[in-house]
């Protein structure tokens, strides 16, 4: 009976260290309004939107490069970012305290001002 060639060591924790992280939990950030070609994991609907760092997930190889067979190094810090739904969707019908959260890589983020986070221009 065949078995895998090597026994795999799986990571012990969900998270990895991210010593070079630029942002901290609670920081206000904005997702870049950028539209590069190719593979990204930043959905269009969140681009340009402002949110808050909810947690630091760690440093991971860049999927935008892994997708084409490159090693994705140096690793990029990945954050979970929380966005008020009312600031993501112009016609959000639910209450103002509803939120949406997702993982955004550091290179897709920029610091946001201390305004109320209203969307700028149209949503993408």
């Amino acid at each position: 009976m065949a078995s895998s060639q090597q026994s795999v060591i799986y990571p012990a924790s969900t998270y990895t260290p991210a010593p070079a992280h630029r942002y901290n939990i609670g920081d206000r950030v904005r997702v870049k309004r950028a539209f590069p070609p190719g593979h990204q994991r930043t959905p269009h609907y969140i681009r340009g939107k402002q949110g808050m760092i909810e947690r630091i997930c760690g440093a991971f190889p860049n999927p935008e490069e892994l997708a084409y067979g490159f090693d994705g190094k140096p690793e990029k810090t990945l954050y979970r970012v929380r966005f008020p739904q009312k600031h993501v969707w112009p016609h959000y019908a639910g209450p103002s305290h509803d939120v949406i959260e997702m993982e955004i890589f550091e290179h897709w983020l920029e610091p946001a001002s201390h305004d109320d986070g209203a969307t700028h221009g149209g949503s993408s």
Partner: protein
Amino acid sequence: MTDTPLNKGPHDIGGEPAGPIDTIDHGMKFWERQANALRSVAQANKITSTDELRRAAEDLGDKYRDLQYFEITTSALRTVLLEKGIVTEQELSKKMAEIRARFNVPDEMESPLKKKAST
């Protein structure tokens, strides 16, 4: 103001209007379970990666909207295996003909996939 979304892949659908959800789980057919296992083993054996497979799926363009989930994932695996030179179009086409014969599928069943494989 409506902007044409720039470089938005067919997979990037969060926020698009869509119809009611069929909330019943229709499970997986045998071939889908096998295709899923194949994809999983291919990744575990480092033949390909989740990221490559996702990207290959996204590059299906308009086809993406017409295909079912495991048709997409199977097409994506094919793309990656061809790209990496792990299999050739000729090998695939020959093997598919073999399998078709095994299942006694008539040769008259011309499919877009088969046509593409023979070009």
